[in-house]
């Protein structure tokens, strides 16, 4: 497969690198012939006691998670699965993390190594299968979330962790600003809160950890109600009714940012640090609101025309844009990988 991939790259035509295509809507519209990664699939190595899994890019996330579950382990960053076929290569390229991100860390935190093919059809290996590795620049984590614009990811190694022994879900009725206050106050205490979601006047908390820790936290927090476990997988995979919308903004802000006074409906995750917004207000207003509190706003889902006009991702400062262009040229000098998908400039 690697040779076939290389041959496609050598042809020098723009390529749309694609796994299951479950995130075709993500980022900006772009051109290129589809390069399907799914035939390069399979778990290459999984060693539970070494806490890593290595898989080829086209391996379905579901296959990896099933293998991990059989040994009582998991991907703690909970990448969203937009289809049962979503691939690990696509997950790493998108770099999206799920409900446990604020406590467990992000996808890039768990990337230990990658193999890529760069724009000159060179196969390169960065990082490895060990947890501590500072030899050379951390290109593996640079590749995570780069939307396939720097290279074709052919293989990834991810750190894995044991599944929590015990879990519990609690539910409280409170308004948004009260929820934000509570979440930030709890965040200062050594409580086993691993995920949170506030929407429509209800705050849902997920506790996880040692049995005793979860029990004592339940006592401390005072349970107001409960929710089925499926709530968290529906949140993770964005199947909750909230996400069924044509236009959706994703605001990444400091958890202590006050309630953002923007018209529309919000769903808040990550202890207040992630604010989903359904709103028809001007994109400039939303971007400015996020910037004013030290964060940024991504146009997550939107009609193509709107994305084309305002760009999916928040604009970069001039020095950052220069570095992005330089790095793009370093890995893909002919600009063949997913051109324009991240920013129109490269």
């Amino acid at each position: 497969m690697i040779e076939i991939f290389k041959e496609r790259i050598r042809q020098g035509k723009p390529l749309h690198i694609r796994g299951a295509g479950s995130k075709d809507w993500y980022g900006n519209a772009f051109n290129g012939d589809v390069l399907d990664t799914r035939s390069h699939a399979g778990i290459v190595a999984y060693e539970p006691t070494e806490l890593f899994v290595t898989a080829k890019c086209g391996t379905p996330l579901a296959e990896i998670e099933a293998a991990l579950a059989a040994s009582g382990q998991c991907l703690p960053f909970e990448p969203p699965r937009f289809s049962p076929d979503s691939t690990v290569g696509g997950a790493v390229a998108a770099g999206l993390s799920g409900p446990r991100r604020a406590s467990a860390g992000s996808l890039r935190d768990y990337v230990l190594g990658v193999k890529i093919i760069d724009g000159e059809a060179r196969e390169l290996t960065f990082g490895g299968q060990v947890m501590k590795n500072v030899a050379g620049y951390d290109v593996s984590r640079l590749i995570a979330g780069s939307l396939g614009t720097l290279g074709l990811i052919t293989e990834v190694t991810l750190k894995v962790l044991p599944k929590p022994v015990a879990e519990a879900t609690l539910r409280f009725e409170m308004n948004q600003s009260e929820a934000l206050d509570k979440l930030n106050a709890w965040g200062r205490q050594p409580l086993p809160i691993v995920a949170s979601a506030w929407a429509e006047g209800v705050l849902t908390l997920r506790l996880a950890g040692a049995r005793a820790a979860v029990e004592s936290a339940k006592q401390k927090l005072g349970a107001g109600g409960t929710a089925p476990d499926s709530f968290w997988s529906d949140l993770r995979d964005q199947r909750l009714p909230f996400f069924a919308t044509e236009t959706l903004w994703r605001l990444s802000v400091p958890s202590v940012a006050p309630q953002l006074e923007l018209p529309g409906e919000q769903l808040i995750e990550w202890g207040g640090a992630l604010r989903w917004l359904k709103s028809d207000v001007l994109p400039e207003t939303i971007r400015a609101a996020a910037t004013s509190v030290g964060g940024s706003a991504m146009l997550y889902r939107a009609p193509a025309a709107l994305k084309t006009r305002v760009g999916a991702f928040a604009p970069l400062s001039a020095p950052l844009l220069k570095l992005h262009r330089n790095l793009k040229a370093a890995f893909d000098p002919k600009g063949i990988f997913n051109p324009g998908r991240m920013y129109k400039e490269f």
Partner: protein
Amino acid sequence: MTTRLHSHERDQDFSDVDRAALLHALAGILPAAALLADHEDLKPYECDGLSAYRRLPLAVALPENEAQVVAVLKACHRLGAPVVPRGAGTGLSGGALPNEHGVVLSLAKMKHILKLDAAARTAVVQPGVRNLAITEAAAPHGLYYAPDPSSQIACTIGGNIAENSGGVHCLKYGLTVHNVLRVRGVTIDGEVVEFGNHALDAPGYDLLALMIGSEGLLAVVTEVTVKLVPKPEVARVIMASFDDVTKAGAAVAEIIAAGIIPAGLEMMDKPATAAVEPFVKAGYDLNAEAILLAESDGTPEEVEEEVAAMRAVLEKSGATDIRVSTSEAERLRFWAGRKAAFPAVGRISADYYCMDGTIPRKRLAEMLTAIAQMEKKYGLRCANVFHAGDGNLHPLIMYDANVPGELERTEAFGAEILKLSVDLGGTITGEHGVGFEKIGSMCVQFNSEELAAFHRVKAAFDPLGLLNPDKAVPTLHRCAEFGRMHVHSGELKFPELERF
């Protein structure tokens, strides 16, 4: 020891840097007390924590603020002078080794905690703030900064960014890269750039991750936002003795297989405990071939549950003795021995050389057996301390630099350990960085195309190669020379290059 650098080891030639023009330019930027150029003033900067390599710089600049950093970098950029950033100088890979035609840029005077936001659990600090000072400032709020390298009392956050420093608790709490939200830095052309922000995600490529661990080659750090985490209510440590290092290694795997991620998981072999015990009196079992330290932290209930679970695993794995700390004082004493391992070895040997490879945990016994054979081969002793939880091994090779030939034998011993680390599926450096020291071993771990990619990353930030030259990433020319002596897996790694 005199400098032992040879001209053929040098990659870029900066001998035409105009010393007078450079000093004149710097004098126009910095107050007199912030610019050193006399021989005796430069002397303390000739090496970092790896004192086997020494060089005097042309000058040392000690800027007091970001504007001065910008001006110094612009002046050096204009004059084509190399710049070596420096924190506390505690690094162990020669990353802050000066260039004799350039400037050492010390961030030591930028040592203020600018903001500590307990509600947001973040601190904004200047690069010269000591690692431990952040935790001390956060303590009244019940918070702390998690990465705790052994040198945390002295090392600075700027240096931690450069090296992606770890510590004894990083299995559970992560490395520097997992605990930093934002780095503000200045590129060699004097441009101020923000990497990351105060939120959890930032738009664009993850340049924050690229900056962390870049060994001062991409930009000079002027401000850092770190994450603070709640201090666990209690912590207890188990000390287990083993009559065989293989059993100790297997016990580590068993703990993880049981679904436990201890807050810390460390191993020391007999030579290491023998060096430490008279020095620290930590109460280590001197009859054991290896001891394991396993820490649990969290709520009292949680710790009780986890300690019991770990104890059961350790007993089943054949521990000959198990002790659990019963007080905070005892816990700190158990750790004191581990944290003092390097100085303790320094007490029993004139010099020692600390290696930093990471290997898959299951290969530990193989590695230790091979090291025992190398001790005989090179006629040198070696003590081993091991971040067992994450596979990061620190063999401490003992030598005497005054005995002709011992340093050379030590270097060869070290290079062989690093090569074996790579062959066993690991890496040449887990947390100390490549620096100047391990640059040859980089040729073992990466092929010429990968090294060329690193050079292109460097050029994206610093096309003239002025920031910390000759460090971290070897030139292909250098690897060809290295490869002349070290053939990898029976085949030459750089077949396209001419051999000398």
